[in-house]
């Protein structure tokens, strides 16, 4: 057991701390793709604090894949209020996919603007009748000359209203078994025949959309991997998405805010944190979080040290992390009582309504990214070796 990163990383950490100090006044207020955001994103790339291991010729920093350095960057940025590197499905899912499976032209064309935040992507996976059973998707793609013609409907498409591009799964081989009939296409969102309708969520926001696709034509070369290999291509990126949900280090920041909140809020003049039952709930959550942080260290270690297995440790992150975060946000609401239900711009609102908003948002994450029930199937089948449900005939 050795939790030191080693002296060679101390200098690196100081560099990161200095950078953060020099830039602590930076605040980004403009909309997505605003010049100030693109410039900040580029500055993070130039310093190696973002897109660190992406090759220079595609717009990355071109550094080594040093997991400890990535960890140090994440740790130090998490401590500071300065703007973090942009995320989103283009950066988290599409870029890694193109790097491993894209053609040279695709890498050249898409990675740089995506990393810079100039090109926003949305993900066209789920359909009204294909949620947890994603591979049953029915949106059609037919090759007509040198163009794909796409027809169908997608749902839960986040940031579709802002996106210039969509990476989309379509059925191109209708006669093949369901997992072998799908292709992974890159669809410009300004194509004719795309109708976007926002879905208003329980939070009041509209992060998601429905996409109605009618005879949408895109160039034949806009395919990643071969025809019929889209399921494998998509699975390569789902791994990236699951890993990025519910990071326990982010939850730690939320726990710190919750402790502050419970020290400030009072009932009949008594601080909430001094009420034993509230305090016990807080400490239970802290105990669970500490377990998840230890689990994250084990995963980190397995990425650095060859031969160390952390398969099960990785499988449980999404399930455990989203449930814990939802409960943490819920405790904050209980700590505020009636005040915890205030929303939008109500008088007496705390923290701009962030606790309610996040409480609901994490219920969405418990469902999204592979529902937590699907996560339990994955854990029991792939990690514990339990059998799959028997197939229903015709499904």
């Amino acid at each position, binding site marked *: *057991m050795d939790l030191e990163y080693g002296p060679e990383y101390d200098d690196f950490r100081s560099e990161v701390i200095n950078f953060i100090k020099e830039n602590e006044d930076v605040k980004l207020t403009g909309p997505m793709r605003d010049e100030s955001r693109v410039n900040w994103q580029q500055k993070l790339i130039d310093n190696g604090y973002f897109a660190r291991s992406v090759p220079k010729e595609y717009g990355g920093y071109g550094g080594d894949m040093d997991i400890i350095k990535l960890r140090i960057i994440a740790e130090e940025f998490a401590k500071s209020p300065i703007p973090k590197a942009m995320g989103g499905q283009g950066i988290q899912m599409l870029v890694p996919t193109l790097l491993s499976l894209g053609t040279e032209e695709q890498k050249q064309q898409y990675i740089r603007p995506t990393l810079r935040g100039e090109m926003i992507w949305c993900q066209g996976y789920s359909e009204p009748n294909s949620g947890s059973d994603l591979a049953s998707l029915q949106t059609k793609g037919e090759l007509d000359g040198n163009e794909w013609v796409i027809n169908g409907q997608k749902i839960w498409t986040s940031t579709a209203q802002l996106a210039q591009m969509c990476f989309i799964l379509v059925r191109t081989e209708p006669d093949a078994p369901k997992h072998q009939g799908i292709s992974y296409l890159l669809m410009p969102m300004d194509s004719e025949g795309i109708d976007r309708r926002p879905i208003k969520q329980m939070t009041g926001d509209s992060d998601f959309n429905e996409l109605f696709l009618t005879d949408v034509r895109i160039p034949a070369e806009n395919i990643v991997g071969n025809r019929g290999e889209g399921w494998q291509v998509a699975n390569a990126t789902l791994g990236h998405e699951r890993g990025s949900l519910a990071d326990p280090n982010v939850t730690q920041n939320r726990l710190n805010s919750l402790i502050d909140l419970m020290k400030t809020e009072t009932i009949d003049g008594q601080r909430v944190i001094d009420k034993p039952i509230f305090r016990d709930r807080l400490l239970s959550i802290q105990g669970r979080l*500490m377990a998840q942080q*230890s689990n994250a260290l084990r995963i980190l270690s397995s990425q650095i040290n060859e031969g160390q297995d952390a398969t099960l440790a990785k499988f449980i992150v999404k399930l455990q992390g989203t449930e814990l975060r939802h409960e943490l946000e819920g405790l904050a609401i209980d700590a505020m009582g009636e005040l915890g239900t205030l929303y939008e711009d109500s008088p007496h609102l705390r923290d701009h309504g962030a606790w309610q908003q996040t409480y609901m948002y994490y219920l969405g994450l418990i469902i999204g990214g592979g529902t937590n029930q699907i996560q339990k199937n994955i854990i029991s089948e792939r990690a514990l070796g339990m059998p799959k449900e028997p197939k229903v005939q015709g499904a």
Partner: protein
Amino acid sequence: MYFGLSEEQKSLEENISKFLSDNAPLDAIKAVADGEEAKAEEIHKGIIELGLSGLMVPESYGGLELNMLFATVVSSALGAGTAPVPYAGAYVMAPIAITLAGDEDQKNEWLPKIAGGEKVIGVGLSEFVGAREDAGIEFENGKVSGRSLFLIDGKNADAYLLANKSGELFLIDSSSKGITVTELVTVDKTRTSIELTLDKVDATLLPGSSDLSVIEKVLDAGRLMLSADTVGASQVMLDKAVAYSLERKQFGRLIGSFQAVKHMCAEMAAELEPCHSMIWHAAHSQDSSSEDARLMACQTKSHVSEVGKQISKTSTEVHGGMGFTDELGLHYWFKRIGLNRQLLGSPELIREEAGKLQGFDQ
């Protein structure tokens, strides 16, 4: 950076598991539970031969001078095997207390004998943690009087290590005059428990223990041992549940193919897997005297106890009616986890302590 067990630690765990599966199978555990003390003594001798009694004793006193991480590895393996042997009190808490706070005479008298497996010291800190039945001990003019309950590893011990309410630690020889030993019968028959009634019994103070940090370290160590024991036992309960679900058929299918059963197992695994990392992490924090070592020990004991409770219930349910029988013997793990949960502070009690440690009262 490496987070996990070393090859040496892994092979220690394997050696203990192998020894226990060869020498302490379920039949042996049942025999011990039915009162066959000789069987327990035989297994105890075996773990002494493996060197486990000397793990925490300094080299200069004949021990191996290993650290808490090694000790959690041992404790987890003993929990997995529901081993009917002294460990947490006799071979971890007692030598740590004497090493930290004993004078030279006390160290010379006890440490080599602990390491050699010649002497067992029972440990009674329950009254420091939270007295029940108005128990407690007082020390005056070299004599201890009062009562102490639920000594760990106290039955047939050669000496007792006891704490008063202010955290000072005392050693008394079990052959001294004025001691009445009452056996306490808990649900867990794989370990023993006793109550001491003391009437002006000769005692020696561990001089260093007037510093409160000594008993805190001893408590942290004890709590981590109980946590590791629970994690080891819980892993076996999960493994047994999965294995049973892949044998048992109902409605023409393995019950492990029903999502209801799969999800129970997945939930157990999701809760338990981080607990392995948590006990290693907490032990390492003790070994490296990290700032949050105490908080981690508290939170580990309370969190692992909660997870253990869930797993011991769920695993029994997966086994259906068989889970409830003595024949299958799953209840030995269930009860072991149940006792671990209460010893040295139940989760609620320890969380209260964890809150104070973080200054929540301020």
